């Protein structure tokens, strides 16, 4: 398993990029994409751990992350469409402003 530990490092870098994206971006679509990146990085960490220990269980957990990610995207995008219909924008800051009034 020569690449398992570097793969863990790559997974944490990807996870960090996703976390920064959620905090920094104002567009709801980009926030959802960053969530996707973070879920995917978690899956990569599972697979790397599976390779590190020589067990298939980590890969099975990636199989469980897949339906979670797809359900999250389906509901999140439906919410994004609803929010756009209601507020006519996807800018999270202006949505927060107009929702607070």
């Amino acid at each position: 398993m020569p690449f398992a530990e570097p793969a863990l490092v790559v997974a944490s870098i990807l996870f960090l990029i996703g976390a920064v994206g959620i905090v920094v971006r104002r567009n709801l679509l980009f926030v959802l994409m960053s969530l996707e990146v973070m879920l995917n990085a978690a899956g990569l960490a599972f697979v790397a751990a599976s390779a590190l220990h020589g067990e298939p269980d980590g890969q099975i957990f990636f199989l469980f992350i897949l339906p979670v990610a797809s359900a999250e995207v389906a509901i999140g995008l439906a919410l994004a469409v609803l929010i756009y219909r209601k507020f006519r924008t996807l800018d999270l800051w202006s949505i927060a402003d107009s929702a607070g009034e």
Partner: protein
Amino acid sequence: MITLDSAIFWTSAVVAIISTLSVLLSRNPFHAVLYLILSLFGVAMIFYTLGAPFLAALEVIVYAGAIMVLFLFVVQMLSPASVPDSAADLKRPSVGQFIFPAGLAAVLLTTTVLALYRSGSLASADDTNVVSARELGVALFKNHYLGVELASLILLIGMVGGMHLGRAAGSPDDAEEDEKVAVR
């Protein structure tokens, strides 16, 4: 010493990280989705070098194939809001815009072709233990059958929730429900 395997791993890792950073930095959601697809391809290649060829295929099919297409649909639906300069961008695409993403994709494509060319020798080359789809399925249904049921439940919930949220506001169903509420 740089072997072909480690070259494949590091190239796909660097491509994945750079394209994920480009998702973060791009202004146009179309470009972001395309960069994210590239990043998922890179992660799929990492899965392949880690001895998970079945998961690499699933990553491409489910993540890049299904989830990202869903994203593209929604970006297109909401494009006037989210793509202020889309018309200008589409009218005059300069050559310079293509060089960076096309170069990234070409690097990853070369890596993929190399890896597939070496396919089969990846397992014997070092001590990576490759989990085949068969082993994965046996382990999944032997030890984690409850998880399979829960995953199907999650998908059902996602579908019902998506249909409920996606119902057009002011549709006949909605009006009827409003009337019912009003009568009560």
